[in-house]
């Protein structure tokens, strides 16, 4: 019997269509896998076997009637900041420990033919790059259990890499899909800002957040992206735009600022090998400059906490999520927020409150918004000369659990290649491109806004030939 948990969406779909196995069998294989394997990995916060098997039965009935599309009956895992109606949704926080989602996120409605195996672990409110800031427990990297899976979508990445689901959904604000995908040796896509509706995503930073697929193959990422994208009346920042550009000759941009100090030499080697591959296959390699690269992290660490401080103001224990009592209204807020939020979240709320406060708003937040324009312009100018930009996804290999916990700046610096992309609202994908002593290495491809098609096309070129 083939290992049903090893299949991509495409293979699982073929198996279901050709009736090699039923959806209930497929789902049960994953539930069994999770039961045995997740003790070591801790990818899941909530497992939903009842829901999953109910959905699987429905899928089997549909398949019997011949009503099958590519995602029908495919078991997946959902990051726990995305709402599934009737299922616990914690955002990795104690504040929402007992919170049950009252409605479906739009992307969940769009994936209604899939099977939801459960909700995956994340850094609290998606603030982190290692999954260590979850209020519950850290997730372990399936390639080396002593190491982090990355974050904040660490649970989703680990679940895919450990074959505990066929694919997963994550969210990306500063690299939270791409970096864990890189650390776990899988594919992760952050779509262009606005292509996927954020309705039902517990917000972190509203001008940066995007939901995206985490998958075993680029083809799978494309399938899920096409299913979840689209303008949604419930998200007024969403749109249907799609831009196509014929690529007769592929011009690949290599940003000179991205290959300097601080980049692990093994990662540099692997990414440069990948670039050489493209060159040997008739792509033109162009050195480009993104001159404001040095300021991207500072810009992000003003904008994201500012927006987070506003978005997280709603968590006060009043309408839901009560974790404490208070002597009066203000004390009630104080007690709930103090007990409900973890240290990293508190830190970012305080940072954001400071940067938005009277007297500092202009110096910090407004200034950061202007630097953001400059970063966006850097990419626009680069894309006049090239079609795709290639960079490492992370400057470092997956680190050990506990290694970076004491140094906040060091952790933040690991986002250096990913944050600019969110600031500029561009689409980017991380795909595996090598390994170092068994630890996965990933590279990032960045395309102009709304050109995910080119991203998939060029990523597949590398992937297909390698395999």
């Amino acid at each position, binding site marked *: 019997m083939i290992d049903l948990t090893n299949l991509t969406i495409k293979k699982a779909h073929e198996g279901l269509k050709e009736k090699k196995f039923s959806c209930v069998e497929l789902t049960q294989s994953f539930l069994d896998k999770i039961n045995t394997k997740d003790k070591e990995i801790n990818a899941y916060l909530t497992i939903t076997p009842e829901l999953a098997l109910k959905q699987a039965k429905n899928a089997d009935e549909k398949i019997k009637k011949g009503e099958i599309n590519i995602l029908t009956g495919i078991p997946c895992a959902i990051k726990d900041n995305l709402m599934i109606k009737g299922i616990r949704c914690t955002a990795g926080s104690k504040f929402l420990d007992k919170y049950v989602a009252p409605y479906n996120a739009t992307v969940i409605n769009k994936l209604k033919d899939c099977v939801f195996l459960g909700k995956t672990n994340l850094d609290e409110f998606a603030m982190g790059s290692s999954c260590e800031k979850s209020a519950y427990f850290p997730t372990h990297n399936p390639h080396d259990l002593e190491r982090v899976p990355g974050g904040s979508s660490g649970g989703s990445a680990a679940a895919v890499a450990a074959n505990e689901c066929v694919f997963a959904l994550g969210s990306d604000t500063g690299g939270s899909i791409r970096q864990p995908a890189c650390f776990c040796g899988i594919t992760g896509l952050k779509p262009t800002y606005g292509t996927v509706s954020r309705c039902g995503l517990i917000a972190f930073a509203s001008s940066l957040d995007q939901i995206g697929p985490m998958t075993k193959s680029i083809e799978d990422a494309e399938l899920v992206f096409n299913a979840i994208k689209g303008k949604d009346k419930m998200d007024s920042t969403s749109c249907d735009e799609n831009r196509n550009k014929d690529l007769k000759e592929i011009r690949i941009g290599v940003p000179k600022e991205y290959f300097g100090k601080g980049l692990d030499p093994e990662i540099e080697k692997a990414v440069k090998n990948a670039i050489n591959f493209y060159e040997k296959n008739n792509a033109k390699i162009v050195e480009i400059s993104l001159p404001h690269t040095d300021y991207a992290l*500072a810009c992000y660490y003003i904008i994201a906490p500012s927006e987070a401080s506003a978005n997280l103001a709603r968590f006060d224990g009043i309408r839901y999520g009560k974790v404490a009592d208070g002597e009066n209204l203000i004390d009630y807020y104080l007690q709930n*927020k103090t007990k409900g939020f973890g240290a990293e979240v508190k830190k970012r709320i305080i*940072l954001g409150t400071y940067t938005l406060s009277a007297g500092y708003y202009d110096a910090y937040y407004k200034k950061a918004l202007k630097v953001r324009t400059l970063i966006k312009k850097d990419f626009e100018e680069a894309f006049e000369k090239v079609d795709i930009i290639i960079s490492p996804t992370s400057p470092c290999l997956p680190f050990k659990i506990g290694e970076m916990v004491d140094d906040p700046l060091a952790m933040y610096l690991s986002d250096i290649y990913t944050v600019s992309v969110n600031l500029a609202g561009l689409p980017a994908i991380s795909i595996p491109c090598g390994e170092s002593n068994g630890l996965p290495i990933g590279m990032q491809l960045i395309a102009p806004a709304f050109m995910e098609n080119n991203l998939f096309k060029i990523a597949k070129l590398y992937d297909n030939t390698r395999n």
Partner: protein
Amino acid sequence: MISKIAKLANLIIDEKDLDKFEKDFSSILAYVDKLEEVDVSGIEETANLSCVENVLRDDIEERKETKELLDLMPDKKDNYLQVNEVFEEND
């Protein structure tokens, strides 16, 4: 300084964590101060990225189910959320 901002955000930082907090906070602020080097004269802000036009819906009442929301409320009376007094005696 941290305690003042924490008060604005309705948070309390524990005495024992305050020192580390101040240190972390200072190092982050020192890092983001980098932006002072950038010349932004004449540059517009990018506050949001999308198709920037106001999106409106028809002004029609939509009735929604409230059971799930009521179930989440910590303190209820009939179908109303019960909270601490917002205005105190001497207001």
